[in-house]
């Protein structure tokens, strides 16, 4: 094939790719950048406990639709349990129950939450009934004295609440506050105490508990706020700073003094809340809001696939990017690697393990595997049984590493399980063959080269922007294909070859 043929092919691929890209970006209005703030989150509450071979009843507060957040979709995952939901006093509660259960139990509540900014007027609330805070004896005296103090130093309810919060948060609270708070009070205790003191003063107050909606948090902490009824609505106060007004990404979970979950017929109750941003929805929101026109093209785009499949393609479409980097590293720079695409697959595994841990785990598994492989060498095994034995050892090593790091509290180490073990096995095999044939230094060079290319590919493949472009504009891969084709005809020197041949030039000049 002539050069002209290749160049015209590359050129037409580039034009086709870029043309479609520009059309989608500027005519149809696909977003060019990944939007960091999306309007949709997945939230999850996980309830774990040990059942005692008795009737079990678990209740969990769950979020409700508010003026700012709409619960789009809800799921309760609980095998064998009956489930009811109730709403009372501004809270929703899910109650799981079963006649008999034994052993470790896990129940899940999952919801999709969409943030909305409704223009609806606030509904006028009936003033809530003030509950008796139940102070007695010295506590009552302390509360009354505290109320007298703050009342004297404030003008209205707002300043009074702020003054109370300030006093409760002092490093050395005065005697009254100290008595009410007890020793080393937690934040939630402070909020509760504030609510009770305000009730004692005849002001309606309650605590509100919720989570901060962020990109990803597998163990989202509960954040407590103080709410005070004032001028026919609830006003929120930060229990530490005293600032009023809830942040926009605060999802209220429940209100009041009761605990998040209650359990009958079991023990060791543990509740974990998690939130994660639904990234793919950024584009979907644009589609739904009609900002993206021409639905026909959408019908046949990746967005028409089920969400799980979309998630798979989000990663798969990055593989060509990694492969392109590999071509550059090998044919232009001249870095030696094991196997052709091994570094790209390792880079994919790094996504889950994170770079540093990935490199450490990879090195440990390969080093240990190599030692075992060298020992197997003495047993004079045939190739396929030998490979299978190394694979077996690699799996065992990975399991052992997971257990070990877990016991040591290094949770990241557990992710060693995500390494493609067949790739690890082949790496060990290749490395030991290279070691045999070309010596240890060559083997280490290639091992190091593979790691460097994998790390590089990982760094590029995790750039948010790259991921977004590859998924929303897959036609850009045509441009990448054109580049790869052109590199296929790069017959010049590799960068590292220059160093190797340097003495050639020195010798003659």
């Amino acid at each position: 094939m002539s050069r002209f043929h290749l160049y015209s092919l590359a050129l037409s691929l580039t034009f086709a790719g870029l043309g479609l890209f520009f059309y989608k970006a500027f005519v149809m209005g696909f977003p060019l950048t990944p939007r960091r703030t999306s309007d949709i989150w997945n939230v999850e509450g996980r309830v774990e406990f040990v059942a005692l071979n008795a009737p079990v009843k678990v209740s969990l507060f769950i979020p409700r639709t508010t003026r700012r957040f709409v619960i789009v979709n809800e799921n309760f995952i609980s095998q064998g349990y009956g489930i009811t939901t109730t709403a009372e006093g501004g809270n929703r509660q899910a109650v799981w129950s079963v006649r008999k259960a034994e052993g470790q139990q896990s129940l899940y509540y999952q919801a999709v939450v969409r943030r909305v900014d409704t223009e609806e007027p606030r509904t006028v609330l009936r003033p809530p009934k003030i509950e008796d805070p139940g102070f007695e004896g010295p506590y009552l005296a302390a509360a009354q004295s505290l109320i007298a103090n703050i009342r004297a130093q404030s003008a209205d309810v707002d300043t009074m609440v702020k003054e109370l919060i300030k006093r409760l948060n002092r490093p050395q609270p005065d005697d009254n506050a100290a008595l009410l708070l007890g020793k080393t009070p937690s934040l939630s205790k402070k909020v509760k105490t504030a609510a009770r003191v305000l009730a004692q003063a005849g002001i309606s107050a309650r605590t509100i508990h919720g989570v901060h909606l962020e990109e990803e948090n597998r163990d989202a902490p509960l954040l407590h706020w103080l709410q005070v009824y004032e001028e026919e609505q609830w006003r929120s106060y930060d229990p530490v700073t005293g600032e009023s007004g809830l942040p926009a990404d605060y999802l209220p979970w429940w209100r009041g003094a009761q605990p998040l979950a209650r359990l009958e017929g079991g023990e060791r109750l543990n509740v974990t809340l998690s939130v994660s941003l639904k990234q793919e929805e950024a584009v979907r929101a644009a589609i739904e809001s009609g900002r993206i026109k021409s639905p026909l093209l959408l019908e046949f785009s990746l967005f028409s696939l089920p969400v799980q499949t979309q998630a798979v393609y989000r990663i798969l479409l990055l593989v060509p990017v990694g492969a392109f980097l590999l071509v550059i590293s090998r044919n232009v720079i001249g870095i030696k690697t094991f196997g052709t695409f091994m570094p790209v697959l390792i880079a994919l595994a790094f996504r889950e393990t994170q770079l540093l841990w990935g490199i450490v785990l990879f090195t440990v598994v390969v080093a240990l595997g190599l030692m075992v492989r060298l020992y197997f060498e003495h047993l004079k095994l045939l190739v396929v049984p030998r490979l299978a034995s190394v694979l077996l050892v690699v799996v065992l090593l990975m399991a052992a590493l997971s257990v070990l790091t877990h016991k040591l509290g290094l949770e990241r180490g557990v992710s060693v399980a995500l390494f493609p073990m067949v790739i690890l096995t082949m790496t060990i095999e290749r490395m030991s063959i290279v070691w045999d044939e070309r010596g240890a230094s060559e083997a280490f060079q290639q091992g190091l080269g593979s790691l460097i290319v994998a790390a590089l590919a990982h760094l590029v493949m995790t750039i948010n922007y790259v991921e977004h472009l590859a998924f929303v504009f897959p036609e850009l891969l045509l441009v990448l294909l054109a580049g790869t084709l052109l590199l296929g005809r790069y017959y010049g020197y590799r960068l590292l070859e220059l160093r190797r041949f340097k003495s050639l030039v020195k010798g003659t000049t």
Partner: protein
Amino acid sequence: MFALARQLAHMGALGLNRRNAEYTLRYNPRRLYPLVDDKLRTKQLAQRAGIALPELYGVVEAEHQVRNLRDVLGQYRDFVIKPARGSGGDGILIISGRLRQMYRKINGLLIRQEELNHHVSNILSGIYSLGGQPDKALIEYRIQAHPLFDAISYQGVPDIRVIVFLGVPLMGMARLPTRISGGRANLHQGALGVGIDIVTGETLTAVWRDDIVTEHPDTGNTVTGVKVPGWASLLRLAAQCYELTGLGYQGVDIVLDKDKGPLILELNARPGLNIQLANRSGLLPRLNMVEQNRENLIGVEGRVAFAQTHFRASADISGLALGDFRWC
């Protein structure tokens, strides 16, 4: 960096990308690779063509033949057993004599018949072959190394690598074992590569681990100026390998035997590029020259004569030195 690339391009250094794309990919059809990967096939081809190589005493192809190994070996006292698909010198057993029922290895140790049989069984099972496929064991003549390189090699048998392009010997290099290479003549393993003037057969400077040197690292003797005897016949031998395999671009490994002269040891379809360092000149000018004169190159004699008139080592070095001067 670009200046260096330009200089290298100017002196015609061949890089890996270009070697793969324009030479091995174009001139070495994949179907011919088995001819050089399997030493038995190479040997049978060569024997039929009457090309000199270490005499084949026998082949063991199946396990049941191992029992008759003693009869196969018969009266031979001095021989080598090697795997047909081995690489890097693994699995080669060298026997230099016999003592009653025992065989004496080259290092003086005696081994029994059973141990010898076991080694052959191992070869057959594919331990030494790269893909791990079942292999064959070759029993052949033990080379008596010519004393020519004795002063500048450390144990082992040195050999001469000749790059042959379309039947024209382009460049030659003696590969001398060192202590680091463990007696093996493989540059990757630390052997010394000494360039050889294709016209005169005299050694030039050497490359050792990508550096240019003039002395053997172990013996300390200078490596330049050694004249290879029968150089022209050695080149003819190398040139004949083109017709033998049909590979356009190949590396021919030749050993010098004390009694039998140059013998083909092995052929290589992807010879390395360090030979350029040892000869201090690039392969590209010579490759181009051969491609341009392709029609005029007829017969082994004609091709060797072409090489010996055009590829004078000193000529292209001095010419390039002048050229470089202009570039810098």
